[in-house]
């Protein structure tokens, strides 16, 4: 049951390219509930899948990344 439901609802997801991330942390300032950074200064995604109504918020955080390391995709 559960698996069918998960397959049916497509949630947007956010991905980070850790080769690009420079630890500028603009994303953390924009959306602390989605992003943090670790001791090495690399982004940590706290919540990969999210509801459609959060899309504008997460995309805004992605646009604030100086090296375009964050991408919002539809799964």
């Amino acid at each position, binding site marked *: 049951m559960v698996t069918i439901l998960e397959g049916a609802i497509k949630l947007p997801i956010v991905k980070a390219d850790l080769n690009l991330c420079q630890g500028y*942390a603009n994303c953390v300032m924009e959306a602390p509930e989605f992003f943090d950074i670790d001791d090495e200064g690399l982004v940590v995604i706290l919540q990969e899948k999210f509801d459609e109504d959060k899309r504008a918020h997460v995309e805004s955080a992605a646009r604030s990344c*100086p090296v375009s390391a964050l991408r919002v995709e539809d799964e």
Partner: protein
Amino acid sequence: MSSDVVIVGASVGGVRAAQSLRADGFTGSIKVIDAEDHMPYDKPPLSKGFLSGSQGVDRISLISEKAIAEANIEFLLGTAATKLDVAESRIVLGDKGTLHFDQLVIATGVRARPSPWEATDGVHLLRSLDDALSLRADFESANSVVIVGAGFIGAEVAATARHFGLTTSLVDPLPIPMARVMGDEVGIRFIELHHRNQVQTYFGMGVESITGSKGNLKVELSDGTLLSSDVVVVGIGAVPNDAWLDSSGLLIDNGVVCDEYCRVVGHSNIYAIGDVARWHHPRHGKLVRVEHWTNAVEQAACVSHNITNPDELHQYAPVEYVWSDQYDWKIQLAGITAEADGQVILEDPNNPNRFAAIYNDSAGKYCGVVTVNWPRALIECRKLLSGDYEISVPVQRVEALLAASPSR
């Protein structure tokens, strides 16, 4: 909401404004015009990875073709705005006609202050993609460079010149150039950084003249020292691109003067953002103009909100943030450190290349932070800057990070 938005300037401010408008649900037309021909590109790499050649043009793109199509943004490149006609709500595009707007966003940025000295051949400014390409070409064949101006851009160019193996000299009229931003104690560490990387510094000295031509340039300093080099880079600040507004009647004074909502003073449908905007900062209670990347992005988002929510305007009161990469130092600065009263410096005993300087104002309140190779400390301190804290609060946070980090 449907109307015509015209954005002048297709750099980070203009492009992010266009994207934010769509994200905020704006359904009218969006036209972005720029005097330059290149697809929108980002400037910070121009003194760093793009100048060294490690990053290609594809890595400095600000927006993909796909994103442009999806957001239905129209770009008019190679098209300069030459005049603003407020009464007719239109801008003049030289001999390419005019463009009507309902809402106008001015994002024309700044240009490098021109070299006041005689020589031109082999003497570079650095602001645009073309500037960076021509400087890189000269760096590839030169043996030596003199850089005039040791601000962020001059220091980054020095680091990149060392990457090319050039004999590098850095000149600045201030004895401790970074002191104007970070105070003496931290400023001295930046001088030591240049010295560790074999850069000759001539600080506390002005430039009397620059003569000669590429391959044989002479830079004469105020104490009589004569430096010879193949190329010269002049990085002595920037001036706002506001001359095209001279006849518009808009208030121009070291940038386009705006209220706390980023609306040009006296106009409800004209906004300015990014390096060209001088707005009333509500928390600081004065007009400020900021030449930092993150400011352009945040101001673009604020203006987009204000265009799409005219009944619920947001004031623009950002916390300053800028980064710089020099040699093996990743430098991050948040808040106000320039007019601080003092600072506490915390070092990581396990990493000699890492420190945090936490600044306080004359009342002892925490007001700003500089970190080197320490993003974790920066984010802890940056989050606290929107509140009102004694300096001990961020200091304790960073000490806690140190206590938690395993000793190597």
